[in-house]
């Protein structure tokens, strides 16, 4: 602190700053994941990703290998999650199923989110017929009920490739995010800070990227998570109905076979794990979203903390003003 500012500047080696700023920027951009909720969600998601990558190493059996001497066995050390009606190992099916779910889920979500941001923010910022026609586009995709559309397109193919399924899920999934983003952008457009930026003559891309996008991050994040959850649910639902062929092994396929071979309610090891995996993946995504939400919108993060701190002092958060005022009267 005693060193003069000029001396500090001279002491800093010239070539390091760009590198340092890059690392710092990287850390800053990842800061939204540096809280307990996001970390927990990312760890769960990471485990699922590792399982998907190393599926052949983790799975003790071939997921479709039949063993007619060990059918419908309850969980044991030989078969961690028991076996199916034709002696397939359920645990191995879950492990390989993770791959199918994650690959399709991520592909579909990335496609949908990119389209949602482009269409939503543009439609929200523009006015008049341009905004209306973009909104009409997303509305057309919104009103078409997604699941029937997916069923029809998927049933056209004997063995639809993963990319096609992902594209269909993405095609039916972007409109939700686009519409919410448009609504929020329309609301932001009338706020003072955006009006001020426009009055200052800031270019359009800067208004959108610097002024608006940080305020849209919560909605983009929640739309990403919502789309991913919807994509996973859509995929497993299609597989459960039997539209996606068995060759695309995923958690829904397991439930399809369990339902087809009347596993309910006796053979719980056949249908409970797959459903729990879908739910666990959904919870992981939701946790990541909570973390991002609280980072972007400090009100969400601090609201609980502040309320708890107030309660320790014997005050209620939802009547904070009154409590402070009486405190002020007591000690003038």
């Amino acid at each position, binding site marked *: 602190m005693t060193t003069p500012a000029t001396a500090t500047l001279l002491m800093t080696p010239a070539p390091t700053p760009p590198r340092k700023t890059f690392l710092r920027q990287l850390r800053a951009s990842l800061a939204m994941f540096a809280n307990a909720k996001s970390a927990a969600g990312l760890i769960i998601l990471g485990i699922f990703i590792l399982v998907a990558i190393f599926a052949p190493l983790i799975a003790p059996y071939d997921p479709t290998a039949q063993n007619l001497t060990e059918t419908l066995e309850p969980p044991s050390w030989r078969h961690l999650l028991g076996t199916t009606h034709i002696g397939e190992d359920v645990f191995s099916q879950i492990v390989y199923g993770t791959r199918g779910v994650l690959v399709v889920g991520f592909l579909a979500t990335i496609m949908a989110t990119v389209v949602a941001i482009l269409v939503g923010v543009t439609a929200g910022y523009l006015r008049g017929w341009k905004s209306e026609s973009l909104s009409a586009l997303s509305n*057309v995709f919104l009103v078409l009920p997604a699941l029937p559309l997916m069923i029809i397109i998927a049933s*056209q193919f004997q063995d639809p490739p993963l990319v096609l399924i992902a594209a269909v899920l993405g095609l039916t999934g972007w409109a939700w995010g686009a519409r*919410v983003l448009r609504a929020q952008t329309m609301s932001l457009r009338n706020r003072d800070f955006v009006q001020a930026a426009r009055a200052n003559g800031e270019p359009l891309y800067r208004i959108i990227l610097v002024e608006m996008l940080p305020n849209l991050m919560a909605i983009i994040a929640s739309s990403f998570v919502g789309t991913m959850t919807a994509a996973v649910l859509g995929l497993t*639902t299609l597989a459960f109905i039997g539209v996606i062929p068995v060759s695309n092994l995923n958690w829904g396929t397991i439930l399809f076979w369990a339902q087809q071979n009347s596993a309910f*309610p006796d053979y719980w090891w056949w249908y409970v794990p797959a459903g729990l995996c*879908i739910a666990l993946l959904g*919870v992981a995504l939701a946790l990541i979203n909570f973390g991002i939400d609280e980072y972007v919108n400090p009100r969400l993060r601090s609201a609980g903390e502040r309320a*708890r701190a107030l309660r320790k002092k014997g005050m209620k958060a*939802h009547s904070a003003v009154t409590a402070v005022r009486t405190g002020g009267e007591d000690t003038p």
Partner: protein
Amino acid sequence: MTADISTIDPTLVGTTATRAERGRSRVPWRFLGGRVLFYAFTAWAAITINFFIPRLMKGDAVTAYMAQARGQIQPEAEKALRLMFGLDTSTSLWDQYLNYWGMLFRGDLGISISSGMAPVGDVIASALPWTLGLVGTATVLSFLVGTVLGAVIGWRRGGRLDVLIPITTFLGTVPYFWLGLIFIAVFSTLLGWFPAGHAYELGVEPGWNIDFISQVVSHAALPAITIVIASIGGWVLGMRNMMLTVLDEDYITVAQAKGLPDRRVLWRYAARNAVLPQIQSFALALGFIVGGTLVMEMVFSYPGIGLLLLNATNAKDYALMQGIFLVLVLAVLIANVLADIAYAILDPRVRETEA
């Protein structure tokens, strides 16, 4: 909501500005007119897409029907059948399109081959009340309970009610159909509290009597509970997050500083503003919920639109599929219009910039 605003005593909440605003026409006709035009366009686009989807598929109704009949129909009859189904491949696509619109305006949705050549309109009309009753009630219930719960959780932030957030999130991520299957296994097969499926027992004659109505209620209870539990998480979370944002606004502080009762600040100031995104989500979620209940009806063998659509898909009954699509699309559109009207009434900012 409208009644709410009009019954508020202006001397309690109003400033001169709000009174002046209320003095003018409260119904934004220009805004609504624009919306009607816009939704008419959306309906046209959806119907046009609906026209093209089945025609892009391999095979058509007549081919499927001919295969089903296994040569019992003379090949010469195919031409007549094609004319009857509006699938005459000898006419141009444009003529087929005009013909399709003509049929729509006459209320003629074609003939369903999977339902014994009954008119599609009649087949849908017999299934629609079941779906509307089950899905409509369950969805509205889920929205209302979830929104109120979210508002209270957001208001009592940091309190014990925060525990509900992870629970509802978990339930919201569970697939509808899986939850339905588990509930059937537990509450129907093991405990025997609810019937396992269908809308009523086979022996019961449908009619307006106590016996039939109690049958319908007991059969709808489990699927309805499943839909509410599976969909409530989104409403709770959305409302709670908006409440936390709104509660930091200056007008909340002012309202509390004025010494207004907590209940008034909660519902009239905070919740009234926080509910705006909820109304939009409600219309948006309808398409998704329709998809979810479609599978739910299959799990519960509930005789609604969803089960009908699945049967139609399996039987390649294109006329019925098109008809169901049309009904679903129109239902979601009407919900969107209603949400827009509610939104415009509640949020003057949107009304002003749009009109």
